[in-house]
């Protein structure tokens, strides 16, 4: 039976034949992830299970990235708990301090996730690794505890929606715009339970970073995973991250899809998601002129080097408008260093930006850029729910890095072409 990417990847980790959509598959996991917010709960369940050790010391990643550098006593206590657990269990991939980056940018960069892997994380954006061809999804704390103890988990095999993206995009249009456009079309529940499988000429032309940006937001359409075939670009990325032995991966011709959605991105404008749902998507020209108080460039969606280059290209020789706080958070130490080397950080400083450490920070309303009531931000992050970045009376608009940068300069939502 021809298989979708989802079935194919699960099969590699499953002893019994993986059935059709809706059936249950029991799989070995390649990596289990938790962060400073979710690990403490998982550790509690892990202890209730009477587990003496993790299934594999190199296949558990604990990344303290959300409220770090610890913003208050509670967050410091949480991190202490995770740190002590990591030490006790001999967890190799424990990250904090100068080694930590936003989890979903960090793990791919370190080569800890790759094509054909099955990854479960106590974080809904674990789906990011689908950009590399990994079946990766978020779960609750008890599930993650069980996976840490046993090295396996169960899945309901998802039906797959195939998304074909074709055409040649204009300047400043990339993965973020494709995924926003798709969510705008199918809605925040459009892929509930399901796998999204991306293909088409525009996807093949996209960098691995751009694909991870898209996979990251699969959950914003309700999806379980967002999957990309692993091609030469993927293999080059994985090799550069120090991995060996990865192979190309593609769905079988004739695999059964629930439906196919087609997008033509030729001539498409950059896209913006308006408050308070990621499905409220409009072309930037329709929201141009909405005044902003803050612009955030960073996060697991768009905090990678390619994103910073794009923002810097727009900001070079320009300044953020008076009254706009421009916050740039390179997503990992590696990205930070690269941006430093390339002179991007200087461009941001010259533009009047605050350049912060790698952290989730403002993305979840944690710290480092919280909004007051009546304030409005544009952000390269992935969620614009009510109150996501601060006051319930604040507003978040989502976009790619070029639009966020241009908006900072104008002081209102703008396209790079408006400058």
């Amino acid at each position, binding site marked *: 039976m021809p298989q979708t990417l989802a079935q194919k990847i699960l099969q590699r980790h499953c002893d019994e034949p993986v059935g059709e959509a809706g059936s249950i598959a029991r799989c070995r996991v390649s990596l289990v992830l938790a962060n400073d917010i979710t690990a403490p709960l998982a550790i509690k369940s892990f202890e209730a299970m009477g587990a003496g050790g993790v299934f594999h010391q190199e296949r558990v990643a604990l990344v303290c990235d959300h409220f770090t550098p610890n913003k208050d006593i509670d967050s410091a206590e949480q991190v202490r708990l995770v740190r002590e657990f990591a030490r006790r269990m001999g967890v190799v991939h424990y990250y904090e301090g100068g080694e930590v980056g936003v989890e979903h940018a960090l793990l791919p960069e370190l080569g800890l996730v790759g094509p054909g892997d099955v990854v479960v994380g106590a974080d809904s954006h674990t789906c990011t690794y689908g950009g590399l061809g990994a079946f990766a999804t978020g779960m609750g704390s008890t599930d993650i505890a069980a996976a840490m103890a*046993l090295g396996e988990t169960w899945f309901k095999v998802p039906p797959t929606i195939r998304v074909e993206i074709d055409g040649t995009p204009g300047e400043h249009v990339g993965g973020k715009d494709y995924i926003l456009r798709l969510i705008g079309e199918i809605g925040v529940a459009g892929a*509930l339970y399901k796998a999204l499988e991306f293909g088409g000429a525009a996807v093949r032309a996209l960098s691995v970073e751009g694909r991870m940006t898209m996979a990251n937001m699969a959950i914003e359409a309700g999806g379980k995973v967002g999957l990309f075939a692993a091609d030469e670009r993927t293999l080059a990325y994985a090799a550069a991250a120090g991995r060996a032995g990865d192979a190309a991966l593609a769905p079988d011709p004739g695999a059964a899809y629930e439906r196919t959605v087609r997008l033509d991105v030729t001539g498409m404008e950059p896209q913006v998601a308006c408050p308070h749902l990621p499905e409220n998507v409009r072309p930037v020209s329709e929201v141009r002129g909405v005044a902003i108080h803050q612009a955030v460039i960073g996060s697991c969606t768009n905090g990678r080097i390619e994103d910073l280059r794009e923002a810097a290209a727009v900001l070079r020789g320009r300044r953020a408008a008076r009254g706009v706080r421009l916050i740039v958070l390179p997503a990992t130490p590696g990205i930070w260093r690269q941006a430093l080397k390339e002179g991007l950080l200087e461009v941001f400083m010259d533009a009047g930006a605050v350049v912060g450490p790698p952290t989730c920070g403002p993305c979840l309303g944690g710290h480092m850029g919280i909004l007051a009531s009546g304030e409005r931000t544009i952000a390269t992050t992935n969620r614009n729910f009510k109150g996501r970045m601060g006051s319930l009376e604040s507003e978040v608009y989502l976009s790619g890095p070029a639009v966020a940068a241009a908006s900072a300069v104008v002081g209102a939502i703008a396209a790079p072409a408006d400058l």
Partner: protein
Amino acid sequence: MRYAGTAHVVGANIDTDAIIPARFLVTTDEARLGANCMEGLEAGWVARVRPGDIMVAGPNFGCGSSREHAPIAIKGAGIPVVVAHSFARIFYRNGFNMGLVLIEVGDGYAELGDGSRIEVDTGAGVVRNLDSGAEVRCQPVPPFMREILDAGGLVGYVRRRLAGEVR
């Protein structure tokens, strides 16, 4: 496994706040949560339930937050199994993990009227309305999911696995 009991029908898109409102989340005790089961849908809803009764629901049951308290509350109310058109993804996981049997039957749920006597046979993959005689097919519960349920949920299952009692 076979379950038989009176059907209590709830509607579509029942969210976790309807199942157990946030104000009751101050405990993880099954009995206490069970005493307030469906309190967000209708005050005193749980009074109609006798131990062993079966909940029947429309599409997308359990949508909303990922709170594991929701399936615990249903179990605590004495309901061992929920038969629904479909379940929200996280609730589906949490249900089995907390030891609650969840059966998806698609449009067939309409055959299972409120107050009717119904029987669920998880091994054969069939739900019967004993009053009308209607039969609704479903996927049988796979053996290892059965093991999770038999252990009372995922925590108990992992304990057994680690103790070498099951494979």
